[in-house]
Structure formats: C-alpha cells, structure tokens
C-alpha cells in the first residue's frame, strides 16, 4: 500500500506508455520525455501561481497589512487575474531596439530556467532527466542565463537596461564561483555528479532520529548556508536585487519589456528560485528522504515538496526582512568572505572523510570551519565606528 502510493506517478507514466510497447525506440523515448515535460510544467506553473500569491500574502503579514484579498477566497485567484492582465497588455518594443535580440532574450532566460528543473529527483524513481553528470548539467545550462540577461540589456537599447544587465552579470559571475565550490564537497564525499546517487548517499538514520543528510555535518551546514545565499544572488532576489534596483535604474534589464514578455522574466525568476532550492534540497537536505525513520511511510515526493516549500518560505521571509545591499558590498562579500569559506568547506569535508566519517571527524571539521570563520570576521572587520552620517553631496 505504502509502496503503491509512493510510486503512483511512476506507475501512471508506465501505464500511459504501455500502448506504445513495440514501437521504435525513439518514439518511446519521445513520448516518455513529453510526458515528463508536461508533468514538470504543470506542477511548476501551478507552484509559480501559488507562490506569487502566497508571497504577497506573507509579505503583507510581515509588514502588518492585508495582502491581496479581493479576487476569490482569500485572494487565491489573484494569479488568474494577473495572468489575464499581462496577456491583454500592449506589447511595446522600442523603435531603436535590436528587435530579434529583444524578442529572444526572455525566451532564452525562461527556457534555461525550465530545462534545469529536469535533473532534480522529485521522489523515489522520479528524476525526469537522469543523466550521469546531472549537477554539471545544472550549472552548464544555468550559466547560459547570463547571456540571456545580457541580450535583454543590449537589445533594449536603453541605458538603464544596459546598467542592469551589467550589474546582473557581474553579480551572477561572482556568485557562481561560491555556488559551484560549495557543491564540490558533496560531489567529493559521494564521488558522483548524478543527483540520484547524491540523494541515495544521504539515506539512513542514526538512532532513528538523526538523518544522514549532509546538512547535519559541520561542512554540510556551512556549505548549505553559503549555497543558499549564493542561490539568493543567482536568482536576483532581495536583498541582492541590485540588477532590478527600481529606485535607481527603473527595472534594470527588464525596463523595456511589457506585457507577457515581462511576465516571462518574472516566471523565469521564480523558476530559477525553484531550481536552486530544489538543488539545495537534493544536495544538502537529503532529497526526498524523510527526516526521521518513523515518518518514512509518507510518500517521497511529499517530503521533497515540503522541503522545497520551507526553503521558498525563507526566500520570501528574507525578502520581507532585509533591505537591499549596495553593489560594492555584494562584490566584497563574494570575493572576501564567500569564496574563502567555500574553500574551507571543501577542506573540512576532506578532513571529515579521512577521519572515518565519525564523531571525531565531525568535531575536527567543525573546529576548522569555526577557526576560519573567526579569522575571516576579524580580518574583514573594518573597525569603523558607527556614528552620525556625513553627506558629501547632499545637505
């Protein structure tokens, strides 16, 4: 019974593919891929609609006001209204813009954001695209987003767009480094680049209550926090949304986009968030494994989406709490703090591994991370006294 509920989607897919048995191999492959793609799009577009309204509700709660509450019960039909509004808006293309590049930019950004969702294991036997180098695939496809952002900035032929694109690319390239280096300890410890193997390596429990997720080790916890912060930057979310920076450069690379093209950018941002959070769940939070042994009867995909939802809530929470950082602060933080800490995680994971993955290794790796963290915070402290602010150009 438990197994049946757990594998219900896998079985449904097999049942739907059953009439095709005997067909050539490539038809089978094509049908299987199309089914997976349809399921992925259905799930994540629903999640996107749901999150867009929940985010506004939660932000409203944080700022002590009602969120959207006019359309439908509790404002739940707000995404439908928003979608209709976006669809019937006029699509304005600047007359001096590079029309083709301007048109292709949102498509490329959205496409890359959707493709990377394929490699994440959503449950037992539920990886849409199970390839050997899945993690590498994620980052390889993810790195082409920069080109899309640049196309949006250049194609619009607008100074705000170009400034926004430059800012976006600068911070994305800087934070791609800690993002990739913090996945390195996980890849080292499991010896695999495939997400399925990484999830499988995190199965099992100590005393039935402590799961063997990588986040329970010191290097895993540190790498998870670094990965999450880098993910926040990669998806251009507050407090790292300087590329949009509406108080300075209108809307950055999205300035000249309106109607459904703007909505496509918006969707890509959320899909990027889902992808990064999904990868964080896969790498550090045990993928679809249950947190304690007795709860294993709940289907695997539910656990995955519970963890994903928790991470997404933190995204919204951070957005409602922190003010926007400055460009130079973001860059300094990336190169002076994030990068050394990411390398420390790699070394610390190696110590943990060679100490036999036991309690002694746990303590040693914790000690290393603590020492480096304290040293960095002492070194990077500017020792600037906080006092009344003096303005150079404004009085």
């Amino acid at each position: 019974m438990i197994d049946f509920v757990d594998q219900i989607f896998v079985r449904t897919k097999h049942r739907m593919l059953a009439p095709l048995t005997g067909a050539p191999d490539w038809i089978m492959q094509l049908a299987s891929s199309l089914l997976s793609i349809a399921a992925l799009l259905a799930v994540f577009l629903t999640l996107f609609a749901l999150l867009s309204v929940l985010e506004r509700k939660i932000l409203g709660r944080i700022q002590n006001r009602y969120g959207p509450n006019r359309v439908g019960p509790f404002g739940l039909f707000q995404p439908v209204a928003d979608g209709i509004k976006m669809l019937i808006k006029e699509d304005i293309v600047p007359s001096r813009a590079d029309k083709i590049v301007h048109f292709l930019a949102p498509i490329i950004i959205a496409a890359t954001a959707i493709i990377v969702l394929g490699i994440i294991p959503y449950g037992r036997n539920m990886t849409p695209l199970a390839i050997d180098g899945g993690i590498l695939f994620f980052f390889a496809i993810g790195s082409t987003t920069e080109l899309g952002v640049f196309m949006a900035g250049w194609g619009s032929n607008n100074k705000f767009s170009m400034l926004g694109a430059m800012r976006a690319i600068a911070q994305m390239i800087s934070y791609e480094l800690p993002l990739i280096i913090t996945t390195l300890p996980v890849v080292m410890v499991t010896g695999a680049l495939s997400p399925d193997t990484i999830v499988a390596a995190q199965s099992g429990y100590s005393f039935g209550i402590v799961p063997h997720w990588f986040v329970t080790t010191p290097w895993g916890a540190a790498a998870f926090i670094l990965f999450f912060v880098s993910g926040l930057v990669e998806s251009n979310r507050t407090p790292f949304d300087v590329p949009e920076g509406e108080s300075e450069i209108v809307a950055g690379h999205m300035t000249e986009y309106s109607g459904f093209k703007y909505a496509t950018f918006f969707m890509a941002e959320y899909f990027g968030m889902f992808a990064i959070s999904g990868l964080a769940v896969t790498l550090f939070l045990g993928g679809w494994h249950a947190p304690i042994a007795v709860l294993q009867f709940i289907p695997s995909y539910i656990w995955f989406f519970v963890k994903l939802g928790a991470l997404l809530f933190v995204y919204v929470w951070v957005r409602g709490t922190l003010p926007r950082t400055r460009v130079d602060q973001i860059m300094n933080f990336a190169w002076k703090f994030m990068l050394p800490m990411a390398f420390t995680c790699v070394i610390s994971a190696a110590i943990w591994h060679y100490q036999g993955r036991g309690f002694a290794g746990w303590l040693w790796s914790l000690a290393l991370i603590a020492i480096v963290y304290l040293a960095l915070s002492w070194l990077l402290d500017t020792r600037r006294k906080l006092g009344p602010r003096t303005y150079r150009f404004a009085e």
Partner: protein
Amino acid sequence: MSAVAFLTISIMTLAAALAAALLPQLMRAALSLAVAFVGIAAFYFLLGAEFVGLVQVFVYVGAVAVLIVFTILLTRRDARSPDYFRWTGAIVAVAIFAGLAWAILSSAGLSGGPGKIGPLTVQRIGEVLLIDYVWPLQCVGLVLTAALIGALVLVMEERR
C-alpha cells in the same frame, strides 16, 4: 534517427557559424557564435561524450561567449568593418583550416572505423584526471592562477 539528428545539428551549427562570420552587426555575430558553440556541444552529446558536451556548454557559452560580448561592449558602438578586404585574416583562416584538416585526416580514428570504447562515466574521467594526469592538471591550474594574478595586477590602482 541519429542520421537525422546529425543532419539537423550540422545545418544549425554551420548556419550559425556562417552568420557569426558574415553578419554586419557585431553583437548579433557574437550571439550566433554562441549558437554555434551549442551546436558543437550537441554533436558531443550525439557521440555519447556527455561530459565533454556539458563542459563545452559551460566553458564556451557560459564563459567565452560572455567574455566576447563584454569585449564588444568596450569597443566603440558605431565601429564598422572596413571596406577593403583583409588578406591577412584570410591567410590565417586558411592556414588554421588546412592544419586542422590535415590533423583530422591523418588521425588513426578515421581509417579504422568506430573503436570499441566502454561507457564513459564521469567517475572514470575524474579518476583519470586526478590519478594518471594529476601533474598536467596541476600545471594547468598554476598557469590559470598566474593569469588570474596577472589580470588583477593589470587592473589594480597604483598606490603612491
């Protein structure tokens, strides 16, 4: 199936490469070059060299194309290609093409037909890279670090 895929990818890659060479707008040429890079990555996938294909996308589309695009950004916006024909460029291109063609035609792989290779996993690549070829890898790392430091020295402000 794979013949159809080969033909499709070939046409796409060649068209993108031609566009990169012939388009008058510099930015569009650079973006077509990125498409050609993706086409080459698709060839690697078709040949079963998954890892190389992924690295191709990672390095060439994610880094080299972005670098080219940034370089164009630093040039003058109204810069046009000169009216006269550049013989030096043509000679270099023909020389590179001849060299590559000679190397490919004289390689053993063409004459002997497809060789028997086992499934190439990422793990196997990692083992080969970090055990058999660890010294060349370290040397490459050293060269790249030197390049990084050199770039930093170039852009650093001079202190008085």
